[in-house]
């Protein structure tokens, strides 16, 4: 895949003679999206030499090709006509036949590359606000296709976040800037015109331009970079500011909140990162801190991993589990995991924090009287006080001393952060240590940006350089910035993607993606890691032979170094490789160059510098400082009728990730909304303000999904401090009343086809205020805005067998017995006993497979009793299938693949969904298709709000305003051994494999969709359209016509406004295909499905097969002499990404091999152990589908003192509901059963009727349930 195979005459299949309007309009876009800039922009010299161009040239730039920005159609036509003529003229000999060039691995094949086999390289993903992830990049013949976590990196440990997974797509973003664009002010009669340029042009320009600051010492120069920790950039910054001390350097992140830094500064004298070790936590109180979310915190992955380790209870006799209290304003990932969750507006969270401190500090004898005195007094309700006090008692529990911690969220004022540090010190917690935070990260950049904007307006700067930032969109006063910036001669914007800032800049420079550039990064714990390129910059200028020529696109450090005058001996700019090595020479303590190479190579190989990971220190809290900070705490709630708004960054962060379609379509936490950023309100608040979605009611808030074809949120106008924005409103159970959650990063205007016009830009509401806006006025407008969500039902409808959950109290009391307990109903029918989870919930049991025939499917691993002597008997190799002697799969022959998903630790973060999307070439479908329920994600995370879970109430009785539980249940194809889909497929397109896979044969599938209908899990996904093969929101034939007929309906959307045409409805032949760059992301090991074909989770069979090939090549043999894939040798994509390790995949028959890992020695695979867990149950197992994926019961750990719910407490003694306990038997006759089950919906019938039907099979079964049936 190189530029060399692009003969100019063949790359453009379009116009040879006279291009039609349509072709030209298509050309217009492909111009900027073509790999090489092909025809016209190979080099300006070539163009300049052509007579046709002289009319259009001034200096060396061709004119008016920048339709994307402002150029007119007319000039575009002129230039294109000429360029096409040029292309024809220049390449006449090649016109007769396509002249494709291929690059064989011939004479000297690149070392290590085996075509078809991916290579993995370590690099580092820099994330906003100093976040860092160490990643491994899967590259196929040099093109990165998938990101994995780096197992060596302390943040990742092999796991990865949603952003890491999605970052690969931004490399192939078709809307990236392809070449520098220069705004020539002299052209167009002085009105200016944007022209495509080359990096050579910029370098030439810059060499003339920047030396002027030598004289002024940098006065008039402002550099706006994004907040990140990069040693090399810091070094460049230092040298630049040393050279030009009067220059302004702003590290800007619009989503930041610097209260935490200020709080730690008050407490410790310097801003600090906390390094919290949740793995030993016993009690955690989170004050609005979303610490489990890798998207919200640099160490979110670590927290999720550590916290999950405290939530896995197995042995009920020694059950030891952490307890999480969360007080929060919105509904976060962390709140979803809470054992006790209190909704509170931000001001109330502050009040509760103050009360907590006042309650705890004196009791702990921390000598913090000054702090207590300084804290403001707050009024809180009795129930809130009870929550605080019980929580405090739990935190101060002597038995848990040192293992309890309070954490505060970034929205809370600095005083609260300081007070929390004081509390933690008083608690003598051993869980937290601190690492120094750089001044850049601690700085209040929003204030700095506000100042800069004012100065810019005042004319203090003549040169503003935005490096990876987009202040024209997200500055506190973005419009003022953009206007002033656009007027500057020296406005320069370096950006990977298009942005509002590049659109306004004199020089819009196409920066390099992190997968294309050299760099380095510093994690919050001090780990230094390199960024190394996986691929040469995709959009470098090329010469006639297709080789890169001239100055390559620059990364941020390269540009900054160039501006700072950093040059090689020959006067050319140093590249990133040299810059990073120069910085690292000091970091690696290399005495000589020879000394340097080895650790450098080691670091590149490992993806980090060993030994740089800090453990943090435990500085002493300065109580006086805390008291001083506490004095500044304000408790003002919003005035009546007004809201407190919390601005919380989502996956788009400040908008920089907005053009990543995977992220746009990833269902958002809680709401499952895609392609939008509605303002989130609690149902009650929305009802009070008249902002409920169309057709929703307070009693049954999610009825909009059944009543509206496109459920629509009310558009409202939000006003704060005189600034107004409009945004659609949506309801989310669990948000505090009187609070609105706003998500920035949407409503882009020049970010690309996937994000322009998607959602609402709420950035200007915030101004330079903190992330909490108290006193936002809301006015409902008459408009509605369609909202597409992937999940339209909120309630489990009492189907408690689907998500099984108990409290720890129940688990410790009953789980142990249940394992020993022989089930009376099944005794005599099926061997073995039911575990604890299998006894819970209605319709919970898998019935015995009583067949009239000798059913080969009976020979299932699930049927085998582990105590059976034949259990581990693996038949010899050579089990083959052929058409003559084909036998149904024998599931007793390993390997048999299976999976477990732990509901206790799943946080619902969505990393599995997007990892699967990246691995399996799953296309996005667009907003309208999502609204129709056609998303293609192979693994989805079902989310349910539950009220009084133990009371089996139906949806009508759930208090959606204050749900007691939020459950997350990832569901993918469960690979049933008795798969309902397989029998119904008329063409044998979905069949069973010998290793337990439910295969989906795309070539054979004709798309009857019968399989999907008959799938009880509804995990099959249908390609209703040719989603994967066309450019998202791309051009199509006849677009101009449609736009001319119906301007508001024309165009393309699938994502943006509701009334635009869904591009999928355009016949595929008329649509623009994926360009070759976009195709490069596809995983070559997985088919790209066409339309009309069913698809679904394959258990990442391509990985499994690769692992099997690898192990056979290495001749790995199990002790039994059979071929063997050791546990952990293959991971499914979802498992690999899952930050909390909730997904385990492996060979369920692997019971004998011994493995040694961090947890010690174990026998058998992890998935085997997990399936034998007391918590393991089969989803809808009663259908006898025999899923290979089992789910693990969720256990929560409530504080008995805080559980007031009678049903919940009663369930601690009667977990099997009324009648579910076959072992006990006593439950069967109880009152509920007497009600008329059918019509009162209370579902008191449960197993009684079920057992009745079984009674037909066994009289013993009938007698087992005794009186209940009499």
């Amino acid at each position, binding site marked *: 895949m190189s530029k060399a195979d692009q003969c100019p005459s063949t790359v453009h299949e379009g116009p040879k003679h006279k291009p039609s309007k349509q072709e030209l309009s298509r050309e217009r876009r492909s111009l900027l999206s073509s790999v090489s800039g092909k025809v016209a922009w190979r080099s300006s010299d070539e163009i300049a030499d052509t007579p046709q161009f002289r009319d259009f040239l001034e200096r060396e730039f061709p004119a008016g090709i920048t339709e994307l920005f402002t150029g007119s159609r007319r000039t575009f036509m002129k230039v294109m006509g000429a360029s096409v003529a040029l292309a024809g003229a220049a390449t006449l000999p090649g016109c007769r036949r396509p002249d494709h060039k291929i690059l064989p691995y011939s004479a000297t094949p690149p070392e290590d590359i085996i075509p078809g086999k991916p290579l993995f390289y370590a690099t580092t993903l820099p994330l906003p606000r100093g976040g860092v992830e160490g990643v491994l990049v899967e590259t196929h013949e040099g093109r990165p296709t998938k990101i994995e976590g780096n197992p060596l990196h302390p943040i990742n440990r092999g796991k990865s976040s949603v952003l890491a997974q999605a970052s690969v797509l931004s490399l192939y973003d078709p809307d990236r800037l392809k070449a520098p664009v220069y705004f020539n002010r002299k052209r167009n009669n002085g009105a200016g015109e944007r022209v495509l340029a080359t990096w050579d042009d910029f370098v030439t320009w810059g060499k003339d331009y920047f030396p002027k600051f030598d004289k002024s010492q940098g006065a008039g120069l402002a550099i706006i970079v994004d907040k990140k920790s990069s040693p090399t950039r810091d070094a460049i910054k230092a040298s630049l500011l040393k050279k030009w001390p009067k220059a302004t350097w702003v590290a800007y992140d619009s989503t930041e909140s610097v209260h935490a830094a200020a709080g730690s500064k008050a407490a410790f004298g310097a801003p600090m990162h906390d390094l919290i070790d949740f793995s030993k936590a016993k009690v955690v109180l989170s004050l609005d801190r979303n610490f489990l979310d890798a998207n919200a915190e640099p160490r979110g992955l670590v927290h999720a991993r550590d916290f999950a380790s405290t939530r896995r209870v197995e042995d009920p006799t020694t059950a030891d589990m952490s307890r999480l209290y969360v007080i929060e304003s919105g509904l976060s990932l962390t709140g979803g995991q809470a054992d006790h969750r209190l909704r509170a507006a931000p001001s109330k969270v502050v009040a509760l924090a103050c009360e907590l401190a006042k309650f705890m500090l004196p009791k702990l004898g921390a000598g913090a009287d000054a702090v207590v005195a300084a804290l403001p007094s707050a009024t809180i309700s009795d129930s809130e006080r009870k929550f605080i006090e019980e929580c405090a008692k739990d935190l101060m529990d002597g038995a848990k001393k040192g293992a309890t911690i309070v954490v505060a969220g970034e929205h809370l004022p600095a005083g609260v952060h300081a007070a929390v540090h004081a509390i933690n010190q008083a608690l003598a917690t051993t869980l937290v240590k601190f690492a120094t935070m750089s001044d850049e990260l601690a700085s209040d950049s929003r204030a700095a940006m506000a100042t800069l904007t004012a100065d810019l307006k005042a004319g203090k700067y003549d040169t503003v350089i935005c490096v990876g930032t987009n202040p024209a969109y997200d500055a506190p006063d973005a419009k003022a910035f953009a206007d002033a910036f656009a007027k500057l001669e020296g406005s320069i914007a370096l950006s990977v993607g298009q942005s509002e800032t590049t659109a306004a800049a004199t020089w819009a420079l196409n920066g390099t993606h992190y997968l294309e550039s050299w760099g380095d990064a510093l994690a919050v714990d001090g780990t230094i890691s390199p960024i190394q390129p996986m691929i040469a910059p995709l959009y470098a200028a090329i010469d006639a032979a297709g080789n890169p020529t001239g100055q390559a696109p620059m990364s941020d450090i390269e540009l900054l170094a160039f501006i700072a005058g950093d040059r090689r001996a020959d006067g050319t700019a140093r590249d990133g490789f040299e810059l990073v090595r120069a910085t690292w020479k000091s970091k690696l303590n290399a005495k000589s160059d020879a000394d340097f190479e080895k650790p450098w190579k080691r670091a590149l190989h490992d993806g980090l510098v060993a030994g740089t990971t800090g453990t943090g220190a435990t500085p002493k809290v300065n109580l006086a400082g805390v008291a001083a900070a506490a004095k500044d705490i304000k408790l003002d709630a919003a005035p009546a009728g007004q809201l407190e708004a919390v601005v919380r960054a989502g996956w788009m962060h400040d908008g920089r990730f907005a053009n990543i379609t995977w992220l746009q379509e990833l269902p958002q936490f809680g709401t499952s909304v895609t392609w939008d950023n509605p303002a989130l309100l609690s149902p009650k608040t929305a009802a009070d303000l008249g902002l409920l979605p169309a057709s929703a009611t307070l009693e049954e808030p999610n009825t909009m999904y059944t009543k509206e074809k496109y459920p629509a949120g009310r558009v409202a106008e939000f006003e704060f401090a005189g600034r107004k924005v409009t945004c659609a409103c949506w309801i989310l159970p669990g948000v505090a009343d009187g609070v609105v959650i706003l998500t920035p990063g949407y409503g882009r205007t020049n970010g690309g086809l996937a994000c322009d016009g998607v959602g609402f830009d709420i950035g200007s509401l915030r101004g330079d205020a903190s992330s909490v806006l108290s006193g936002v006025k809301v006015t409902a407008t008459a408009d509605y805005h369609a909202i597409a969500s992937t*999940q339209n039902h909120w309630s489990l409808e009492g189907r408690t067998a689907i998500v099984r959950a108990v409290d720890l109290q129940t688990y410790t009391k009953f789980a142990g017995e249940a394992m020993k307990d022989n089930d009376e109903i099944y005794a005599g029918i099926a061997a073995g006993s039911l575990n604890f989870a299998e006894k819970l919930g209605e319709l919970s049991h898998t019935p015995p497979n009583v067949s009239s025939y000798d059913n080969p499917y009976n020979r299932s691993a699930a049927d085998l009793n582990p105590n059976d002597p034949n259990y581990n008997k693996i038949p010899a190799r050579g089990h083959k299938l052929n058409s003559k002697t084909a036998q149904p799969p024998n599931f007793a022959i390993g390997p048999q693949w299976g999976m477990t998903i732990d509901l206790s630790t799943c946080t619902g973060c969505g990393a599995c969904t997007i990892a699967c999307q990246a691995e399996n070439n799953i296309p996005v479908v667009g907003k309208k298709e999502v609204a129709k329920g056609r998303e293609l994600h192979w693994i989805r995370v079902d989310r349910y709000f539950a009220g009084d879970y133990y009371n089996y109430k139906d949806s009508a009785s759930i208090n959606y305003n204050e749900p007691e539980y939020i459950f997350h249940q990832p569901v993918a194809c469960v690979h049933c051994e008795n798969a309902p889909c397989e029998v*119904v497929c*008329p063409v044998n397109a979905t069949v069973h494999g010998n290793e337990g896979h439910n295969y989906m044969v795309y070539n054979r599938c004709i798309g009857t969709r019968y399989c999907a209908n008959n799938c*009880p899990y509804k995990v099959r996904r249908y390609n209703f359209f040719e989603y994967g093969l066309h450019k998202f929101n791309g051009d199509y034939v006849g677009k101009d016509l449609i736009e001319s007929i119906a301007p508001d309906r024309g165009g393309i959307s699938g994502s943006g406004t509701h009334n635009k045409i869904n591009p999928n409805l355009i*016949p*595929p032949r008329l649509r623009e295909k994926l360009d070759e760059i976009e195709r490069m992301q596809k995983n070559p090991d997985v088919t790209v499905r066409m339309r009309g074909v069913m698809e679904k989770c394959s258990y990442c069979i391509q990985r499994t097969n690769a692992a099997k090939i690898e192990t056979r090549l290495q001749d790995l043999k199990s002790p039994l002499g059979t071929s063997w894939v050791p546990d952990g040798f293959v991971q499914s994509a979802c498992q690999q990404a899952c930050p909390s390790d909730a997904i385990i995949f492996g060979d369920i028959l692997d019971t004998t091999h011994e493995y040694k890992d961090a947890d010690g020695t174990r026998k058998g695979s992890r998935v085997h152990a997990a399936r034998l867990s007391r918590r393991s149950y089969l989803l809808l197992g009663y259908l006898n589908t025999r899923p290979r994926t089992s789910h693990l019961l969720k256990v929560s750990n409530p504080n008995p003192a805080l559980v007031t719910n009678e049903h919940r407490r009663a369930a601690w003694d009667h977990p099997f509901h009324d009648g579910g306990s076959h072992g006990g038997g006593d439950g069967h006759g109880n009152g509920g059963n007497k009600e008329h089950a059918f019509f009162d919906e209370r579902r008191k019938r449960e197993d009684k*009727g079920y057992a009745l039907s079984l009674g037909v099979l066994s009289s013993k079964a009938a007698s087992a349930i005794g009186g209940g049936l009499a």
Partner: protein
Amino acid sequence: MSTLHPDEASARRLAGLPTGELPTYPVAPGTGDGSLVDDPAVRAPLVLNNRSFHDITEIVCGYAEKPPGRWWLPTFMMAFTIAQLGGLFIGYLVITGIGTWGMNNAVDWAWDITNFVFWIGIGHAGTLISAILCLLKQKWRTAVNRSAEAMTIFAVICAATFPGIHIGRQWMAWFLFPIPNSNAIWPNFKSPLLWDVFAVSTYGTVSALFWYMGMIPDFATLRDRADLRLRRNPEGPRVLPFLPIRTDAIRAYVYGFLALGWRFSSRHWIRYEKAYLILAGISTPLVLSVHSIVSFDFATSVMPGWHTTIFPPYFVAGAIFGGFAMVLLLLIPSRELFPNMKDLITLRHIENMAKILLATGMMVGFAYGMEFFIAWYSANQYEAYLFANVRARGPYAWAYWTMIFCNVVSPQVFWFRWARQTVPVVFVVSFLVTIGMWFERFVIIVTSLHRAFLPGEWHMFWPTAVDIGIFVGSCGVFLTLFLLFLRFLPVFAMAEVKAVLPQASPHHHGNGHDHGKAGH
């Protein structure tokens, strides 16, 4: 014919008509048209107006030979246009993708299979009338069997369209057939959808054979009449004024080709009768099997609302129900548009069919009730929820109650004789039943799927213009074909109708024998 058959005389007396006088139309509802004899001692006439054998020939051949009324061409053009529009929608569907329909990942079948089952159901009445009523020696079938069979064929054509186009890759539909291929991949014989392929194609083939074979003697009549006219008047009407081709020449040629050399010999008739009986015997189980097998699409699945053992008889009853409603829906207007058709299709016929509607309507009503009962009795939470909460009270409850009203409530008027004998009432009820039977399939398919096991994957289905267009188009195809049938083919089985004339009876008075009289 001057002398009236005594039965006919009684009929006229009971109908309040003076003996020997021809009835005039319209006949007052209270008295009927003379076919509504309710006296067990009297055999009600199956053909009115004292028609002779020749009259029957003239009437039936007249439809195919004489220009139709002015209504025919506009109606045909309209139906044909609708059919073509449906074709355009199908073209768009095939070019663009199944997504142009409104389905989603929860509701993967909706209007497509609804329409398929609807049309297949309609197709049942024809074969039932031809085969089962033939075996049961129900003589009144002779008046309606030909058009009912035609309707069956056309309905099967419409039905067969939908499985063909509803698949995602229509060009791969041949995978469904057991064609030996180099991949050695056969269809999955366990799949009910494959059973459908065989059941429907068998049914279509046998029905077409049955229909065609029944028409052979009538084709021969048409052939001979055209030939005779041509011989008498070689300068008969031309196809087009300037073309020297005679219309009757074309008739003689085409009908002659279709008549397969039929010469009305006794030997022909004997073989014809035997073949007819054999085909009736073959068709009878098919009537029961086809819709049973169609119901297996649902009954063999695991989905609540589909996984139901009552489906085969329930579907067959429903199909007969819907099919008879469609027969009535077609024949009642035909009767009005071809007034002499009323001699052949009498109120008695309509009343009989109304009775069948009542009976089968109550069968489906029983099935609807039984589904609820079993949902409760099974104590299965998902099953119970589907019926108690979804079908009767969910977002598609309107469809469910439409179905109940149309299929269960509306036929109840047929308990009243007046309603059975009043053509407009029968027509309205037939129309309602046709709607109700479409909704029955919609309810079974969509409401079961849109709220299946896991509430996390519940989605609504909303039809699109393409959904609607293709269904309406299929109605256009159906109507187009039926109008062509009315215009060009023998709409009645002449020989069979003649066989039920009083004159055909050996005891008939006017036929030269007098042992009828002597016998008394």
